[in-house]
């Protein structure tokens, strides 16, 4: 939400934000969004250094913003405070890396087999926990040879696909599936090569890096955006970032802000985009009949886009697929948050409600479009979690995933 001087005065201290904050419910010492946002903001405006390590515990889930009856941009205030708060050296170094999943991906995927081998050795993990405060309890996603665009003649309407770090470095196969999915709908996808969207940088308090990522993204897509080409993202956080004008990073910067607003107006969540085409009769509905009992988990950054549950609607169109909307709140992973040693317990505490609900539902599959939600759900439950793209593509090509 944009920063303006009235924002703060709109806070009536009703505490509704605290009642929806996942961290407040799971962490007994967390002061909550009302205090870390509007209350401390008054001191920050006076130039007083009022922030403690508590700001680092904000997930950036935006639930406080959505629940506020007066539309105060609570999480934006906390995100800015994260940027100025000084952390101890070990956490600062770790978070420097966590702010750069693109750089990490480039390095770790040079020799992916070696990376994966070392990252699952318990002595290595214990050492990482000791030296870098990265919990040994949460497994890492496997790395592979990253996606490299091949020169390929594609036919159809042009769209840009913003892949995000996870698909690029961990799941290039899934990235290809998205391209195939779009091709099934007569769309020629061009994969954007801008690197990370900047959400992890902002989440880790590295506003300088967030700005750099924003500028790279804008530059990479400028020509296509000027030409009116739609931009599609499959990752909820990347998509939230594109739609929100990069989370206010560029709020008051003339040309950049104008460019970001143009991009925002042309950005789509993948399922939202396909449904919009369905409105115009352009969705390919030659579906195979499948047999899946799916529980759908909505990532926080999908909720914050304010577009409902497009994947639920889309998957329900596939014959033989039943979809239950789990609707049990945040999973607690929040990108890199659940990997942090000091936050691991809070992260799992936040996810407890979701895990319990999934346990009750006993679905065949959990579908969610957020990669780290998937990791957390598989870590916290016995369920198999997949990206809904896999289910939709199976409906098109009949090949089990």
């Amino acid at each position, binding site marked *: 939400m944009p920063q303006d001087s009235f924002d703060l005065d709109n806070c009536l201290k009703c505490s509704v934000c605290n009642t929806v904050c996942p961290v407040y419910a799971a962490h007994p010492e967390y002061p909550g969004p009302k205090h870390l946002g509007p209350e401390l903001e008054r001191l920050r405006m006076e130039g007083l250094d009022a922030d403690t390590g508590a700001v680092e515990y904000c997930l950036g889930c935006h639930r406080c913003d959505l629940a506020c*009856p007066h*539309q105060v941009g609570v999480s934006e205030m906390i995100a800015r405070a994260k940027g100025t708060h000084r952390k101890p050296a070990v956490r600062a170094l770790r978070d420097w890396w966590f702010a750069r999943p693109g750089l990490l991906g480039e390095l770790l995927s040079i020799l992916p087999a070696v990376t994966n081998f070392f990252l699952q050795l318990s002595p290595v993990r214990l050492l990482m926990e000791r030296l870098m405060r990265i919990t040994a309890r949460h497994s890492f996603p496997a790395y592979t040879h990253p996606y490299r665009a091949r020169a390929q003649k594609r036919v159809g309407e042009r769209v840009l696909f913003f892949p995000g770090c996870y698909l690029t470095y961990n799941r290039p196969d899934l990235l290809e599936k998205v391209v195939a999915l779009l091709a099934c709908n007569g769309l020629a996808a061009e994969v954007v090569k801008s690197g990370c969207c900047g959400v992890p940088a902002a989440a880790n308090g590295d506003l300088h890096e967030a700005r750099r990522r924003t500028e790279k993204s804008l530059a990479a897509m400028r020509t296509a955006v000027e030409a009116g080409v739609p931009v599609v993202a499959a990752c909820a956080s990347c998509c939230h970032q594109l*739609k929100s004008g990069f989370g206010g990073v560029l709020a008051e910067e003339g040309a950049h802000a104008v460019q970001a607003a143009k991009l925002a*107006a*042309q950005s789509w969540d993948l399922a939202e985009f396909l449904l919009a085409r369905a409105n115009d009769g352009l969705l390919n509905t030659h579906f195979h009949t499948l047999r899946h009992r799916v529980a759908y988990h909505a990532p926080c950054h999908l909720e914050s886009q304010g577009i409902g549950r*497009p994947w639920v609607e889309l998957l329900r169109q596939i014959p033989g697929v039943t979809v239950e909307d789990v609707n049990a709140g945040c999973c607690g992973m929040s990108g890199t948050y659940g990997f942090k040693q000091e936050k691991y317990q809070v992260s799992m505490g936040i996810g407890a409600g979701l895990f319990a609900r999934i346990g009750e539902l006993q679905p065949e599959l959990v579908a969610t479009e957020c990669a780290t939600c998937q990791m957390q759900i598989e870590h916290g439950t016995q369920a198999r979690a997949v990206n809904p793209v896999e289910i939709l593509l199976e409906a098109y090509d009949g090949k089990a995933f």
Partner: protein
Amino acid sequence: MRTERFDVVVVGSGIAGLTAAALAAEQGERVELVSVGAGAFVLGAGGVEEREVKALAQEPGFAPAMEFFLTLAEAAGVALAGDTRDTLLLPTLLGSFQPMQLAPRTVANAALEDGTATRIVGLHGLSGFDAGFLAERFQSAAAARGLHAKYEAATIEIPSPLGMPVTTLRVAQAFDRDAGFRTRLAAALRAAKGAAARMLLPAVLGLDSSDELRAEFIEQVGCIVGELPTLPPSIPGLRLAHRLQAHLRARGVTFLEGYPVERIEMANGMCTGLQIAAPGRGFRVAGQSVVLATSTGLRALLPGADALDAQRRPLDANGTPIAENLFAACRPGEHISELRGLAGRILAGHSAAVSAMAERRAYAAG
């Protein structure tokens, strides 16, 4: 542009909007509820004042609206106690008694009763609830009414560390989440009971707890337990909201929370869609019927609106409905806060939804 289509779209998740959505959902409609934040009722006790009922009793549709809401609240596990004849004198945080007609069961348990000995129990570390001050004030306020009610104070330790500062929200969340916490809290209360027939606590008995769960807890304590609503966040108001929302979700109502309606689209005398100010391009929903139950003045969304007709359809300056399928809880120029309390909003939301449903049936009948 993507448009999501529903049978009924309700704007506003205050008590008027929730009532309207419940009525439509009960009749098998596919309902979307669009809102910015919770309604103001979450800040209160979730009850109906005596003066509201007095002022509204003769209004057309009042009795069925209240009956509908009471059935709804009971089904959602947050039943209201009391009836439309007897008045409950409910204690307030300032030490006075407020005449209420209806209140959530555990709040109604705190009503002033002649001859009852009540122990006010504070929680150690919880600020904004002074048991000693309240006992003294209630004692004298009761005496001023010529009643013999005995009030005394006690304070208990919260049975598990909940972090600092202690808030009613933290205690309520622990109450919801942890059966062991409930057992320990009940034991601590039992130990503090003394000779009292009843105990009165700050309202902390869960944000999501059902009537059944709270009744079990009270059974464990072994005497009547009443809740006294505190400063915001007020747990009984939030509980009413949470349980009504969960009840609606279970009946297929979907919620779109966080972004306001910025434009209402009209074509050929019908409301064809609502443009919602979501990030980027925004979002559009369409309902065959639309009920506006928002605290934003109606004129902000419908600049030409002048009045409502008997069906609660906004009329233009010529007295023509702006749209056949558009209904409103508030009159143009009226703010929802001017409606009389919870009861006024229930009546407004219910009436608008009744008209919307009648219009849906007429439309279906061709």
